[in-house]
């Protein structure tokens, strides 16, 4: 190994280490402040908890009741889990149909799905909310249908791309043997789609879990998901902000993501960046 390369590696390693620690400062700061009393958070955010400012888990126990976090967590979890499940069942079926049936309407549908990916949410947010009100989709169950529809573009696009790379012979053989399309799909296609389905599930889960505007506009007054609860807590009733409870709330909304990340890091990095094909 050349001397220059070795120096590069050592310098590189130490500068990356410093940068990585800097990278985590915002998160560490919030964690640290979640154990401090209200007054100490705004006046001295950088001081670690000391004898006079340390409040133990008080922010977590008192603050959470007031911020309605647990309810918000429930709504977020319910909507995310079921939207992802529905998307991962219905969009592969549609993608298979589009990829295998040669007709004007399948190609039209495909281009419409691809087109929907480039349309900013701003363009449809007002009218989508109106449609949701008229069709009574403005509840935690109905919103799953909206997520399925709005998320269909990317999911169908990814699945179609993959299905087109699967040789068609197996399906042909199964059909000659008399298997129904239903059976062909679930015994032959669906199992091969599993890795792609993981990618699609991760992409949609990150989107739905973190989404603010769609749930805010459609169900926000009655059912506050985590981003809505966080945002409204910070802007509502000025002057009475319980900063301690708010810090605890931020920590608790980040923890599920970090846990999720630690469990499936490889899949997540691969899955989320697979979305780069989008557009």
């Amino acid at each position: 190994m050349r001397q220059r390369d070795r120096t590069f590696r050592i310098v590189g390693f130490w500068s990356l280490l410093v940068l990585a620690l800097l990278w985590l400062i915002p998160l560490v700061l919030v964690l640290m402040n979640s154990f401090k009393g209200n007054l100490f958070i705004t006046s001295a955010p950088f001081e670690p908890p000391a004898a006079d400012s340390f409040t133990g888990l008080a922010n977590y126990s008192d603050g959470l009741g007031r911020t309605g976090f647990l309810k918000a967590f429930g709504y977020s979890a319910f909507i995310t889990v079921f939207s992802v499940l529905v998307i991962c069942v219905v969009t592969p079926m549609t993608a298979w149909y589009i990829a295998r049936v040669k007709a004007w309407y399948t190609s039209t549908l495909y281009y419409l799905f691809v087109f929907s990916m480039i349309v900013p949410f701003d363009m449809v947010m007002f009218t989508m909310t109106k449609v949701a009100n008229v069709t009574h989709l403005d509840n935690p169950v109905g919103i799953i249908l909206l997520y399925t529809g709005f998320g269909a573009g990317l999911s169908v696009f990814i699945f179609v791309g993959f299905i087109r790379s699967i040789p068609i012979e197996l399906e042909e053989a199964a059909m000659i043997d008399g298997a129904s399309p239903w059976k062909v799909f679930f015994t032959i296609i669906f199992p091969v789609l599993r890795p792609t389905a993981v990618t699609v599930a991760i992409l949609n889960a990150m989107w739905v879990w973190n989404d603010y505007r769609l749930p805010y506009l459609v169900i926000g007054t009655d059912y506050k998901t985590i981003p809505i609860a966080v945002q409204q807590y910070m802007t509502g009733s000025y002057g009475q902000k319980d900063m301690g409870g708010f810090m605890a709330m931020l920590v608790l909304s980040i923890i599920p993501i970090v846990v999720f990340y630690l469990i499936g890091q490889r899949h997540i990095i691969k899955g989320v960046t697979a979305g780069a094909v989008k557009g």
Partner: protein
Amino acid sequence: MRVSKYIKKWFPVFALPTTLAFTLAFLVPFAMGIWLSFTKFRTVSDAQWVGLSNYTTAFTENNDFLHALWFSVRFTVVSVVTVNVLAFALAMILTKAIKATNLFRAVFFLPNLIGGIVLGYVWQLLINGILGKLFQQDLTYSSAYGFWGLVVVTNWQMIGYMMVIYIAGIQNIPGDVIEAADIDGAGFWRRLVQVTIPMVASSITICVFLTLTNSLKLFDQNLALTAGAPGHETEGLSLNIFRTFYNVRNHQGVAQAKAVVFFVIVAAIAFVQLRATRSKEEEG
């Protein structure tokens, strides 16, 4: 072809559920949105055709839309450059067989998973803490704080993601190309400009496009970090459109017109990007 015929009549089972949801959530709202941008309305059912007047109002009335457009453009230019340069630099270092490289990648990637609202408030604590300590000020004091604050937050969030794409690109460069350049005695900069950058051109196209559209569409971070303060000075396009819809009386038509303009801008960028990728694929 046999498969095509065989499953054709199964449209209701396979394609209908998604198509129905897609129609309700996207197609109908999209078509309605285009139409409503040419009308004046309060409850949608009372919409009256007004031609282009919403569009002229959007661009002429108190300049808020043009201001937001200008803010978004400046923010996008700065973010695209900083995110891509830094992500590329990190990718270069991380592909050099450095210890614990996977751990570093994991740390840099993490912020990408946290939602814009939450991380906007996380950064508000940090930035206000720093500004308070140094100048006894906060983010609402000057639009420069808000602008650069948003740039920092965006960098923190997007660098890890772009870094992963660049790493994949760099690892795909065939080893003999680098070796050949080494034997030729090419220095670091010459190798970078003449070998590495051209070899990862497709990753650069993807990353520039992604940072471009994501910065233009920025909403959650904007709302959480500055909410436009001071005044409306740090209000980007998306936040301006949102507020025109919901905070300005009788302006839904104008807001929808702004949204259509925004859509046209994003669609134009997507079109250019598609052309760029296509022509590169044809060359290669």
